């Protein structure tokens, strides 16, 4: 029995043990110790938020917003119901880390949500789970029952007099519900269409009550921070980019999968961990942070370290840490056609620039790919993008433009070749 969780990894350390997702494995290695200590010592919420701020934990869902700051927006003394919501609506192409947390360390997420609920004065919490991972929705509900039976949830938790409960909410196929306000609409039993902000969820969230929404990996990092301290978490990463982070690497690598490594690790190291580019091929391009992040050509990417600041400096985003690798055989027009279709398909239809613009962009890229492109098409694509970005309620508009603008910027010659020659530069 160890009193504290291992320190080199934050979320995926359970994989070094048998039955990594079980309550027994978690509690035998320091799991729920942070919660017990907080409840026994009645740790003031301000102290917990201060630790989270020190840790420089930034939201792991894509936006990278400082978690401690987000928590400080919550009106904790507001009388009445308040909620903590976990966003496991993981549908950003390339991202598959939160599913693994549900499988391999479900209790660390539960503990993180309970600590968040305690800190923010919430009466209950919901975990919104992506529709397509029904098996993980079911298994996380089993983990909740285990936690309830062990006295970590429900009435008078561990004799503290504090009541709190957690539930899973299952999505059913809508990328937009990863946007936090549309996720709230969805829990309320409505179409998942984003709300205008302000008011922000911290003042008007679930059922109109103050609500904090965090990503799965973010909340699962909280018990580690409370056990080992915000400073230790910060030192795992680099300044302004605390902690280790799970990177989901997919596409043309020999060993696609999740790798939890310190923020600030060189991209070249991750590529090597993933077995390098398949068939010994040459690296062509990388989308470093999920499909909404601008694509980077190989030479720019190879110079990057994997942290919010370095990737941002190179002109893209760390996003959710979803690294999509493309080798020299990829036709960039075909790749963009599939992404453009995705945003067209998933636009919720609420804002005209996004609803119409994503369709226009998809149809133009499609006709270029299919040999019917016109010389003016590239400028037209960029013009449409400018008319979407900044003119919509939520970020899906910008997310749809990011790939289009960056593919054309970095690989313009390939698009021009397609338009002129009605075929591809690269043999697939």
């Amino acid at each position, binding site marked *: 029995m160890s009193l504290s969780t291992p320190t080199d990894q934050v979320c995926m350390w359970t994989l070094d043990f048998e039955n990594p997702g079980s309550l027994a494995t978690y509690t035998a290695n320091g799991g729920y110790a942070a919660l017990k200590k907080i409840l026994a010592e009645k740790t003031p919420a301000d102290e917990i938020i201060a630790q989270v701020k020190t840790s420089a934990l930034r939201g792991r869902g894509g936006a990278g917003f400082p978690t401690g700051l987000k928590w400080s927006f919550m009106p904790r003394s507001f009388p009445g119901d308040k909620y903590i919501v976990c966003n496991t609506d993981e549908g950003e192409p390339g*991202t598959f880390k939160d599913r693994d947390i549900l499988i391999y360390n479900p209790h660390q997420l539960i503990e993180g949500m309970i600590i968040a609920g305690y800190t923010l004065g919430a009466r209950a919490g919901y975990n919104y789970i992506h529709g397509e991972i029904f098996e993980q929705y079911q298994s996380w509900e089993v983990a909740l029952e285990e936690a309830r039976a062990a006295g970590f949830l429900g009435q008078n938790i561990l004799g503290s007099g504090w009541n709190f409960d957690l539930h899973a909410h299952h999505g059913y196929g809508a990328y937009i519900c990863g946007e936090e306000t549309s996720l709230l609409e969805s829990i309320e039993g409505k179409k998942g269409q984003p709300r205008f902000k302000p008011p922000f969820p911290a003042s008007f969230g679930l059922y109109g009550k103050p609500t904090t929404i965090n990503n799965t990996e973010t909340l699962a990092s909280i018990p580690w921070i409370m056990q080992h301290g915000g400073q230790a978490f910060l030192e795992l990463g680099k300044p302004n980019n605390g902690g280790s982070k799970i990177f989901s690497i997919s596409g043309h690598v020999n060993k696609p999968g999740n790798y939890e490594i310190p923020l600030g690790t060189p991209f070249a190291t991750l590529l090597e961990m993933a077995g390098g580019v398949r068939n010994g091929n040459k690296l062509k391009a990388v989308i470093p942070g999920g499909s909404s992040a601008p694509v980077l050509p190989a030479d720019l990417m190879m110079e990057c370290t994997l942290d919010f600041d370095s990737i941002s400096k190179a002109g893209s985003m760390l996003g959710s840490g979803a690294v999509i690798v493309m080798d020299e055989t990829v036709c960039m027009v075909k790749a963009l056609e599939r992404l453009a279709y995705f945003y067209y398909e998933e636009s919720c239809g609420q804002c005209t620039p996004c609803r119409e613009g994503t369709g226009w962009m998809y149809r133009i890229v499609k006709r270029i790919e299919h040999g019917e492109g016109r010389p003016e098409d590239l400028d037209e694509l960029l013009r449409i993008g400018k008319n979407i970005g900044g003119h919509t309620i939520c970020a899906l508009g910008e997310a749809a433009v990011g790939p289009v603008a960056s593919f054309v910027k970095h690989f313009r010659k390939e698009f021009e070749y397609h338009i002129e020659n009605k075929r591809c530069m690269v043999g697939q």
Partner: protein
Amino acid sequence: MLSAILSPESIAQIDREVTKYPPEQKQSAVMSALRIAQTELGWLSRDTIADVADYLDMPAIAVYEVATFYNMYDLAPVGRNKVTLCTNLPCQLQGADKIAEHMQAKLGIGFNETTPDGRYTLKEGECMGTCGSGPLCLHNNHKMHTHLTTESVDKLLDDMK
């Protein structure tokens, strides 16, 4: 009446979902109620949607809005085995196009089509959040099959009755 078209087990599952939310927020259980109804009945007819609405004290149009918004609900009959293949970029890079062609050739149908014997429906899906294990598909919305090859697809489809 929902209890006239669904088994007691399904009704019990819906009732359990309702308890997750504040008493005045029964509507929050609508997504699960539709899922549970579809799982038992195969698809969601207008009548089923109206019955779910009655059960949760919601206007039928509000339930219909939900059923039409989320893409895993089927508003028309589908085959006994609905196979949804992810074709998004990471899966495409890992070979989903080849799997799509193979599935279509083997079953003799395209995406959004059902075989004449009602055994299979093929759908194209969006990201299922499991990209590292692609190509992959969902069977009847709830069971995921990963690392697909043309051989494993043959066996998978043959085993679906």
